[in-house]
């Protein structure tokens, strides 16, 4: 946490150590706190050594898919024949996720340093930091920090006197969730419509401007300086459940809890404890009903699953969900799960880039069926229809936005079928649903 509250004693504060500490935003303040030592050290190593360190640290991508970061870096061509690029994914538009925003807002230099190390490791001369357009304050802070870093010779043609060129640009998004998908982001940087690309080719072969590219999430990159400073063994040792998941993770908790906000815990931390202890439990007089642990794109959990879920990649899979981006959305007993499902489906229908037929048409159709059920006009066969549409929206499209919409539907019907049936049986009062997608 750190802002607006002091960190909870059960947190492991690494990335969020300086949240709330405005002085850490400046170059001098950052250096005073040990900043840019990791970059300096990295520039004295061979790029391949840096890749090796990150590989052995066990760091995995915090943007959603959890892909091992060092392995991803090692996919970049070793023999450089074309310009290489690093993209930092700061589009953070997944409903329920707001951790990258805080990293940029309080510790902009942590991200710049992480980017610079990654950029050096993959032999890129340029990093694009793609920041969600609505993030006006983080954008301003990041730009100021970037200028500061250039002003102090951290970046530029001779980064920290190493003779290496490290350039960095901030690219502002224009308000499309899909631009957080890595290949859509690359199109967007190029000035194209933000549509995901078909793979192959993969970014490491042909990414932004057709050049070898690595893309990483803000939180992933911000963890890198700590790994360089304290060593991969230290990072690997931060693990409470499964050794394949290590380090700390920021969880953005929203919904019906006493103290929503960003909490940093060690991988494998129990979800129940996060909600009950760190967040102070549910709202007054309410009880836990459901939880989406990894941002809106992962399957929802019921109360029992929530209480026994361990927050790492494997622990979440064990409960039938995913760690995703760590956006924890908590619902109490007042929540109408049919309405919540419709509301999330609406988001995906609104944000579908419209390329794939299943996604473009399926998300909209799903919304209309859910709206009809909420209006008291559902029929029992609608549930089978919803599940069949969801099945056809899964695993058949260019990106997983379609799958995400389907996951929401499948998981709520599976766990809260009775609420859907209550609307159909007329035992639940039809809700007022504003028409349209939005």
């Amino acid at each position, binding site marked *: 946490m750190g802002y607006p509250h002091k960190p909870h004693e059960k947190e492991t504060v690494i990335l969020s150590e300086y949240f709330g500490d405005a002085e850490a935003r400046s170059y001098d303040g950052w250096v005073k706190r040990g900043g840019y030592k990791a970059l300096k050290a990295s520039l004295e190593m061979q790029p391949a050594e840096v890749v090796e360190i990150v590989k052995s640290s066990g760091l995995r991508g915090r943007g959603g898919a959890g892909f091992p970061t060092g392995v991803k870096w090692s996919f970049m061509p070793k023999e450089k024949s074309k310009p290489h690029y690093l993209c930092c994914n700061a589009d953070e538009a997944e409903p329920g996720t707001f951790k990258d925003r805080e990293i940029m807002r309080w510790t902009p230099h942590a991200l710049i340093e992480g980017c610079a190390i990654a950029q050096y490791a993959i032999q890129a001369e340029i990093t694009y930091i793609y920041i969600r357009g609505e993030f006006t304050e983080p954008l301003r802070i990041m730009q100021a920090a970037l200028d500061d870093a250039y002003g102090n010779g951290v970046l530029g043609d001779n980064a920290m006197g190493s003779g290496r060129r490290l350039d960095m640009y901030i690219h502002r998004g224009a308000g499309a969730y899909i631009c957080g998908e890595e290949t859509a982001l690359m199109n967007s940087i190029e000035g194209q419509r933000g549509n995901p690309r078909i793979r192959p080719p993969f970014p490491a072969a042909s990414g932004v401007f057709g050049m070898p590219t690595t893309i990483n999430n803000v939180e992933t990159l911000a963890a890198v300086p700590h790994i360089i400073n304290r060593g991969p063994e230290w990072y690997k040792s931060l693990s409470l459940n499964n050794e394949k998941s290590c380090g700390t993770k920021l969880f953005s908790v929203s919904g019906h809890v006493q103290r929503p906000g960003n909490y940093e815990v060690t991988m494998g931390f129990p979800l129940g404890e996060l909600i009950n202890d760190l967040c102070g439990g549910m709202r007054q007089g309410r009880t836990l009903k459901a939880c989406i642990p990894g941002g809106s794109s992962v399957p929802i959990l019921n109360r029992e699953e929530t209480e026994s879920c361990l927050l790492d990649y494997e622990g979440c899979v064990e409960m039938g969900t995913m760690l995703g981006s760590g956006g924890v959305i908590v619902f109490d007993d007042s929540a109408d799960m049919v309405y919540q499902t419709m509301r999330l489906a609406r988001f995906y229908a609104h944000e579908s880039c*419209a390329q794939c037929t299943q996604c473009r048409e399926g*998300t909209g159709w799903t919304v209309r069926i859910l709206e009809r059920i909420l209006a008291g006009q559902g029929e029992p066969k609608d549930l089978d229809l919803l599940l069949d549409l969801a099945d056809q929206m899964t695993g*058949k499209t260019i990106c997983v936005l379609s799958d995400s919409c389907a996951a929401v539907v499948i998981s709520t019907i599976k766990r809260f079928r009775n609420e859907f049936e209550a609307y159909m049986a007329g035992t639940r009062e039809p809700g007022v649903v504003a028409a349209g997608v939005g």
Partner: protein
Amino acid sequence: MADQALVTLTIEGVEVSVPKGTTILEAAKQAGVLIPHYCYHPGLPIAGVCRMCLIEVEGTPKLQIGCATEVAQGQVVKVFGDEALKARESVLEFLLINHPLDCPICDQAGECELQNYVFQEGRSNTRYAEYAKRFSPVEDFGADVLYVPNRCILCTRCVRFMEHVAEEPVLNVSERGDRAFIGIHPDATLDHEWAGNVVDLCPVGSLISKDFLHKARAWELDRTPSVCTGCSQGCNINLDTRSDVVVRIRPRPNPEVNRHFICDTGRMHYRWMNRGDRIEAPLISRGGELQATDWDHALSEAARLVSGSGGRAVVLISPNASNEAMFLAKRLVAQFTATLAFRVERVDGEIPLSGVPGLALRAERAANVAGATALGYRDDFDAAVQAIEGASLVIVVADDLEGVSREALQKAVNAVYIGTILPDAARGAALVLPVANTAEEDGTLVNRDGRVQRYLQAKSAPGMARPVWWVLGEVLKELGRGESLFSADEAFALMAEAEGSFRGLSYANLGMHGRTMSEARVSV
């Protein structure tokens, strides 16, 4: 070459070997299997967006898109497995929920890929119980193109054509989700010379031709392979006729000439084929008046005019006449000191289709200049006009005689006008012979690259009009210099025997994509 390495795979039980790098969809064509598809088009960059071409590849858990997945050695592909069929049925169902189903009034009906695949693989009913369908009014994209957004399946073929082939990116996908539609730049219209191709590329009735609007139902059309006479590029086309009237021209794919495209000038170059003011009978001059006669009489009169003269002759021929006509006319005047000439319209500049090297609307606006030249005709109208004075025999084939007076022909005692329509100057001829136009006969043309290409008869000729090759063949027979010709094929064979440039070629080996003269010489 490494690229030419062959990969062997099995598609629906049929083993095929294709070059490495081929997509499964293209390989399947060789196995005789059409994988249903919308966004894929062989003339456009791959998009992989419609997800219609989903197929099963053994050993791969997820369905793959046939249009973008490359073949691999030993791959086993199932196009009609249950899972793939179910996925495609679902894509079709999704496509139909916002589709108006206005087939009864849609120009595309009968040649619509949505209709076709729904018949083939779709559900017989829909599960769409919602009332709402997306609605947006028809939009005029300018030039010949109307956009009917309600029918659009967002395959992006039109967008990719304008962006990557015409290289004038004026179309885009606007909006997101099921609100998406094809947008046009606010200051642009589809007036690019090659823009009309988007109508052919559109797999549904979303982009339609104003010129063709409500003219005919697709199933009423007869389709005949032909060659465009709009310029010297020689684009391959189909003439679509309904009840003996040409109602539409569409490109016919030829990888060597025009790939899948034609220009808008060529597309609209058909009204002359349906002209009503045609010469329908042979006409013979009696006391300065042209009077109708029959072919027997006209042919013996023609023979008499040719055999009764000697010395100098002139043949003025249209550069759109067939090689067969040009050859036989030349043969007819073989005993004369002959001036063989044509004239051709030339405009300033070519209009290329940027994304296809070697394809342009050419400045030379006639289809058979290369053929005429190979047969010894010269682009020298003035020489022909000068030679008419004092010539004992003048034969004009389909030249409009613009710039020649009736008196000039009258003065030349033995003037024969062979044509489709009767310009005033032709009234000075001793004999007028009615002939078929390009749409009404078989023949060949030679494009600017020396490619000899066949065109076929698409409609009947009016009245007593006959193909030029038949008419000239009969005159030669009357003169005792040949037998009756029964087909253009035979006329071509005579030419291939007599003319070095055509040696080794025949209708059979030309096929419908043609061959170049140099190819012919090499293979002889």
